[in-house]
Each structure stands twice: as C-alpha cells, then as structure tokens.
C-alpha cells in the first residue's frame, strides 16, 4: 500500500488503451487554446497582470525551486524510493548556499547547496535502501532533522558574520541575469498596447527574455537533461527499471542498490539545488525560507505524472498562481473566472468520458467560481494566498486521470529475496 501512498491516484482504474505517445502538436494546440482563454479573460476583466511580462518573470522565478524539488522527487521515485524528505533536503540546500555564497560568491553557494542536499540524500538512501526503513517515515525524520541542523549551524556560523544573524546568512550576491535588450523592449511596447492575444503573447515572451537568471537557465537545462538521461541512456533505463521491477532488474545483473543510491543522492542534489536557488535568488539564507516548497514540488511531480515535461508544467502552474497572488489581488480576482472556465472545460471533458458525477461536481464548482467572480470586486486578501493550494486540490481531484505511478515505488527491496 505504501506504493500507492504518494501516488496521486490510487484507486482510479489504470489508464485505458491509448498509451501511445501523444503528438507534440496536440500539446501545442492545448497550450494555444489555454492562452486564448487566458487572454480573453484578461481582456474581459482588464487584469493586465494575468499575462504581463512581470508575472511571467515572477512565475518563472517562483517555479524554479519547485521544479527542482519536483525533479528531485522524480529521480528518487523513478528508482522506487518515495521521498517526502525533499523539504528537509531543500532546507539543507538553502543553508549551504548561504554559508558558501556569502563567502565565495553565488556559484560556490550553488555547489555547496547541492552538496548539502546530497548529504540529506545519502541519509535517506542509507535509511531506505540499506536499512529498508519505510520511505515516508524516513522522509519525515529528515524533515525534522534538517531544519534543526540548519538552524544550529546558522546560529554557529552567521551570528557574528557581518549582516548575518542567528537565523539568516549575510546577504548573497545574485548570479548574472540576462536580458535580450532590443527584444525585451520591443515586446514591452507591444505588451503595453493591450491588444487581444498579441499583447499576451508579447508579455509571455518578454517574461522569458527579461532578467532571466542563469540559475533559471540552468534549471531548464537540468529538466531537459534529466529527460534525456532517464529516457535515452542505459543508465536511465536501469534506474527506471529499479522503480518498476527491481527484482527483474536484479536478475539481469543490475545493481539495484547502486541505482537506488544514485537516484536518491541525485534527488538530494536536486533538492539542494532547489534550496540554493531559493536562497540565492532571494539574496539570503533564512530560517524557514523553504516554506513547504518541497511538498509543493512533490505535488508538482505527481501533477506531472512523474515526467519532466509534466512536472515542469506543474511547477510553472504553481509558480504562476503564487506570483499572481503575491503581485496583486486584481489578477487573482480574474483568476476566479479563469478557474471557473477551466472547471467547466473539465466538466465537459469528464462528461464526454462518461464520468457524470465528476462532471457535475466540476460544473457546479465552476459555476460557483464564476458566480463569485461576477458578484465580487476582489478576493479577500487573507484568502488570496490560498490560490495555489486550492488549484492543486482541484486539479488532483477533478482532472487528474492517467497518472501512472512507478510500480515498485515505496516498496522495500532486498537483494536476493525475490520470489
């Protein structure tokens, strides 16, 4: 049962036939349709921030640590080890970045964050792979230990450092941010016209070419690189086989322990990186800085069906709602309408699939959100921040369909004990 625990969908039937790869143009079409709807809502509600370059930029920045956490989760779970210790490993990463970053520059911070994450990964691997401890339990333990250790160390090292404190590092300098000069400004001009669709696309693009941190670039490369390594190399195949059928892998001479170790250590490294990115992009290590991003990353991974493209989408979605919520409540108000429309779309899709009950629930919720939009001027400030979490629950509850959990995830494995 542990296997299904972390799985988004457990009791839902396995995905029907169509398991073949869906063509790229389909995804492109879906993205285009979504953009059209968003820009319609933007025009209707006058919430320019919905698609502004600034929002995209903020969403990207917010998405990067989440994507790293999700990637970390994917590496580990693809090899069969559930990792809810991501949060703790990220905390270690933030500390590592703070410690090295203020002394030797941001890139040293990145490396140190990664290394400290690795330590967390090693702990988790020792507990789960070598000692066969329940993966969730080990993860919980790491989530307890890591913040304690980070706090202890930060008091030790930062209290007397200039600009530091017991719970925060001295300021860290940022890595280079790149802007494509002519393009960025040109797009900005178009964006400012508020033309239907055109300005929205311009905003989107502007966000992608303005003030892009090298860390963001690195993150994108890591996501793509993970996809390549896991799906195109012998190493990746072996690693995935450990999450699907470790005993079969063992019987073909694959050293399952080794791959599980490597995967969990990689998971630690990615979490650490996520933490480091967070610390560096906010210019400081601070106690409690991760704020549950490890968990959200996990949700993004499930949302993304344990695949790099999917989890990047999930992370971006969270980053987007988070950015909107922080940037201003006018856009969040428009988000209500967007959510309403999305739910109605889900309702139609579920209805066509034959899921009547689900369709009606989605329809009712969709109508309620739309109604809320039309009957109010703004979302109460106290509730704005809840948007990413509500959206996650709605997505998992109403839309998630074909999730395919790595088959042996969460199961204890011992060499030579296969039946």
């Amino acid at each position, binding site marked *: 049962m542990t296997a299904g625990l972390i799985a988004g969908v457990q009791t839902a039937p396995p995905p029907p036939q169509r398991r073949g790869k869906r063509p790229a143009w389909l995804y492109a079409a879906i993205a285009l349709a979504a953009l059209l709807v968003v820009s319609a809502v933007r025009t209707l509600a006058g919430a320019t921030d919905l698609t502004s370059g600034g929002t995209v930029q903020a969403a990207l920045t917010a998405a990067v640590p989440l994507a790293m956490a999700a990637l970390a989760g994917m590496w580990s779970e693809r090899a069969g080890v559930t990792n809810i210790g991501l949060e703790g490993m990220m905390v270690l990463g933030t500390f590592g970045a703070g410690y090295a970053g203020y002394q030797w520059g941001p890139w040293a911070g990145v490396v140190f964050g990664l290394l400290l994450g690795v330590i967390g990964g090693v702990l988790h691997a020792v507990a789960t792979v070598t*000692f066969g401890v329940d993966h969730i339990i080990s993860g919980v333990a*790491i989530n307890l230990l890591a913040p304690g250790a980070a706090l202890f160390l930060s008091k030790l090292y930062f209290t007397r450092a200039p600009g530091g404190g017991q719970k925060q590092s001295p300021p860290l300098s940022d890595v280079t941010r790149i802007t494509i000069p002519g393009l960025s400004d040109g797009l900005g001009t178009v964006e400012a016209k508020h033309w239907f669709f055109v300005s929205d696309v311009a905003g989107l693009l502007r966000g992608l070419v303005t003030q892009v941190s090298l860390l963001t670039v690195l993150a994108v490369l890591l996501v793509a690189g993970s996809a390549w390594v896991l799906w195109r190399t012998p190493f990746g195949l072996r690693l995935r086989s450990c999450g699907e059928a470790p005993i079969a892998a063992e019987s073909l001479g694959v050293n399952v322990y080794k791959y599980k170790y490597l995967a969990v250590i990689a998971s630690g490294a990615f979490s650490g990186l996520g933490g480091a990115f967070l610390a560096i992009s906010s210019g400081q290590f601070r106690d409690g800085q991760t704020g549950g991003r490890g968990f959200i990353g996990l949700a993004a991974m499930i949302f993304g069906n344990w695949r790099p493209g999917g989890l990047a989408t999930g992370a971006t979605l969270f980053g987007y709602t988070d950015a909107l919520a922080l940037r201003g409540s006018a856009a969040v108000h428009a988000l209500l309408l967007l959510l309403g429309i999305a739910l109605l779309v889900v309702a139609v899709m579920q209805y066509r699939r034959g899921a009547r009950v689900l369709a009606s629930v989605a329809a009712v919720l969709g109508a309620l959100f739309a109604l809320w939009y039309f009957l109010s001027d703004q979302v109460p400030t106290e509730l704005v921040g809840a948007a990413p979490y509500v959206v996650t*629950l709605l997505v*998992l509850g109403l839309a998630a369909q074909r999730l395919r959990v790595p088959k042996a995830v969460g199961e204890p494995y011992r060499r030579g004990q296969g039946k």
Partner: protein
Amino acid sequence: MSRINPRAVLLGLAAPVGALLFAAAFCAVVLAVTGHSAGDAVDAMVAASQRPRTFVNSINSAVQYYLAAVAVAIGFRMKLFNIGVDGQYRLAAMLSAALAGASFMEGLPSVLRVAMTIAAAMLVGAAWSGFAALLKVTRGVSEVISTIMLNSIATFLVSYLLNPDRLALENPGSNNVSTPPIGVGGQVPGIPVAGSSSDLFGLLFLAAAVGVVYWFVLSRTRFGFELKATGLSESAAVASGVSVKRMVVWSMLLSGAVAGLVGMPQLLGSSYSYSLDFPTGIGFIGIAVALLGRNNPVGMALAALLWGFLNNTSNSLDISNIPREIIGIMQGIIVLSVVIAYELVRRYRVRAEQRDVGRALGRTKAATAEEVSA
C-alpha cells in the same frame, strides 16, 4: 499472547533506548566539536528536570503532543498518513474558541459549555480531514498531498476568520487579534502543582481517556482489527470483507476528530481564546511522537513526555549558553535512528522466529553457525 516472552520485551526496549543513547552521543559530539560543553548541557537538562515548572510545562506539552500522536497513529495503523493534523487542530481550535467565547454560551451550565466546545472541535477536525478522505476514496488523491494542501488552506481560512469583521474581537490598542475570551464557566480548571506557577491541564484526563479508548478500540474491537488488517495487507482485507473505502473514511474522520482535540487543553486550560500566537506545529510533532512510540498507546505517551521535556529545556540550555537548536538536531536523530533501530530489531526478530519454526520442525541442522545473511 499468553506468555510474556523476555526476548520480545528486551527487543522492544532495545530499539528506542539504543536510538536515544546514539542520539545523545551524537549531540555530545556535535556540541564538543562546536566548542560547547556537553557536560553543561547535561547539567542544564538535569537542573531543568528538577524544576517543578518545567515538569508541569513538559507534561502540558506532552498532553497536546500525545493527542496529536494518537490522531496520527489512527491513520498510521492502516498506513494512512494524515499529515494534516496540524491544519485540523488549528482550524478546530479557532472555530471552537469562537463558539466557546460567544455570548449565548454564557448562560449555559459549565459542563455543557465545555462539552459543546470539545464536540465542536472534534467535528471541525473531522470535517477538515473528511475532505482528504473524500478525495481519496472518490478520486484516489493521495492523502499525503491533500492533507498538506489542506494545512495551508486552513492557515488562510483561519486568518480570514480571525478578523474583527468576522469571528475575532475588536480590540483596539492591542497588537494581538483573538476570539472573544472564554468566560470562567467555559474553562477547564487546572491542577495546581506545588512550586509551579502554572497548573497541569485539567484536560490531561481527556488525553489519558483518549489513550485508553485508542488502545481498546484498536486491540479489542472489530474496527481495530480491520484497521490493522487493512494496514498489513489491503488486498487480504478486501478479500476478507473489509470495505477499504469505509475504513479510509472512518479512520480519517476519527483521526481528524482526535486532531480536533489537540488544541483543547491549551485553549480551555490556559489561553482561553484563539489568538495570533496560538501554538502551531503540534501536528508535525505528533508525527514524530507516533513514530517514536510505534503507534502504541503507552509508547506514544512516553515519547510525548520525552518530546515535551526536550522542548521545555530550551530556556535552560539558553541560560547555560548551550545553543538550544541542539534539541532540534537531537530530535531528528532520535527519530531517524529509532526507525532504523526498529527495522533492525524487526529483521532480527523475524529471523529468530523463523529459526524457532525451523527448530520446532526439526529442519535445522543441529550446529549450523549463526549465519546472518542480510
């Protein structure tokens, strides 16, 4: 079981004691390496343990941790991870505080007021965890993810409601926001302890009762059996006529209801209102305590006391110039090493049991060496 097996008892103790010693040794090394005196730390903790106030505070903390641990353990028994105890108790405490402080409650008899407050908290807790249960059984959404989300949503909901325009009190000049204070009639009197300015929570007895009921239900009733069976093997449980969905719903609801109780000792025994500084994070402590106590009613009580004591020694450590953050490290190490120790002990026990079976059946060669093949 009819006979008490000395080996079983010894093995049962070996894991937690070993883990504790290891954690203590580890922390001593950490302290020494970072230029602190481990001896001072021990002195400070010993001194703290002799102070009546620390004693009372430790027990009071333990009472809340215990309730949270029981809430977590109910789910754990069937491998259901209710990470949402934290959100459940905060929302429950907030809403029941609003109810208890409401003016119409003033006229009611004291027992009824307290009972209503507690019942409301349980209902709210159950309702909030019920969301996760519903999502799980109807949509297969992992309760780990949904309860994490619900924790965050609870935070926003509480701050939305804890507002003078809604459930909180208009209290100009104060920098705190709180629900209307609960009058004396709605409070639960504490138990005074000599030498301590604070009283033991009266709801200590509620926690004890919850522990007894937990023990009884799990080990003596059909529900408890089915819960355990589902945890051990969902497929076997289904084949035996257990409706796993119903078990999920019931255990989540019960877990949430107990989670609702977590804030009650503090609310009715000390704070008398829900305010910005109402203690948070007890749900997560509950997870650690449940792990440490192996879901066992007595084990969790001991673990809760340990946690309560550790968390109440930070002031003493601070006074002795020992960084109290060492407590966090210690707790993390304890949990990590205890789960590893339990696993090692379990493996040893399985092997020993199989050896017994083999011996009983005369299949073991007389003098086979103690081969340990793991």
